[in-house]
């Protein structure tokens, strides 16, 4: 099994609530473009890993990390460096 098909991976849909908290809007149908391979996907289609200390979102085509979220003392730290765009 590779990183995007193992049983630990959820869909972007699963973090719709977290994304509303971060972006203030429903984001699961927003289109994310991977900065590594250029694949465009709806956020709901991305691979989400919630088992680590934070939440990691990967491209299903190339497995690059697109977004990472870590919550600490009520503050959410957001890393979107893997995204070319999110709209």
């Amino acid at each position, binding site marked *: 099994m590779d990183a995007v098909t193992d049983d630990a991976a959820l869909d972007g849909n*699963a973090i719709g*609530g977290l994304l509303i908290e971060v972006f203030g809007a429903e984001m699961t149908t927003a289109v994310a473009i991977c900065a590594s391979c250029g694949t465009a996907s709806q956020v709901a289609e991305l691979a989400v890993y919630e088992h680590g200390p934070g939440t990691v979102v990967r491209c299903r085509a190339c497995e690059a990390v697109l977004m990472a979220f870590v919550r600490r003392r009520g503050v959410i730290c957001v890393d979107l460096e893997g995204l070319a765009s999110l709209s």
Partner: protein
Amino acid sequence: MAGTAVRGRLSTWQTATVAAVSSETARTRTLRLEVAERAGPGAFQHRAGQHVDVRLTADDGYQAERAYSIASAPGEPLAITVERVDDGEVSSWLTQEARPGDLMEVRGPIGGYFVWESAFGGPLLLAAGGSGIVPLRAMLRERARAGSDVPVRLLYSSRSWADVIYASELDFPAEGVRVIHTLTRSQPPAWTGYARRVDQPMLAEVAWPAASASAGGGGGPLAYVCGPTSFVETVAAGLVALGYPPGRVRTERFGGTG
């Protein structure tokens, strides 16, 4: 301004009261929830297939949150169906402790991708693994509520007959809805249905042909697949192999945290 109000409501945790609890199987319960702030006609405007986040707070302030699919159709009282996951800190409370009158927090409704409305047409292929049936049940109820006659086939994989959620409801499907069970671990005596995990030959027998005429205007069969990751991968890849365009196969995977 309206958008601002919607965002404010969506992103806010709201107190929900358990209004009723009913057992579905030994491991699953349906909880009807009342959200005070959403009282009044039309206040809770969810779409079939969406979920809510549930947050529990312990006496010491520790918080845990999980996402649960909404089991009810739009317009019906908000209900979630929860499967107990071994050692699941949220699902254990929801399935074993929660009583009418208990309080929790909810946020949502959430999600714009894994949703179905009667205007989307079909024919519809719904594929559920285990408690993946929950959002698909909301879609079936929405089909009935909206008076849709879109043809539906539901392929539902469970371990045994005792694990079938909504069994009595699914025993009497609405006209135009066909329910196909597969029981992967044990089967009742004289069982004539499928008795294995979903595989390619099963999909080829059950799924609408990829070229089926559209019933509601729109691009042919539309599939919704919900279950554990391995189930979803098998079904989604299988449907694409049968000629379904990837964009007509909508998936929702769920994990083992509870």
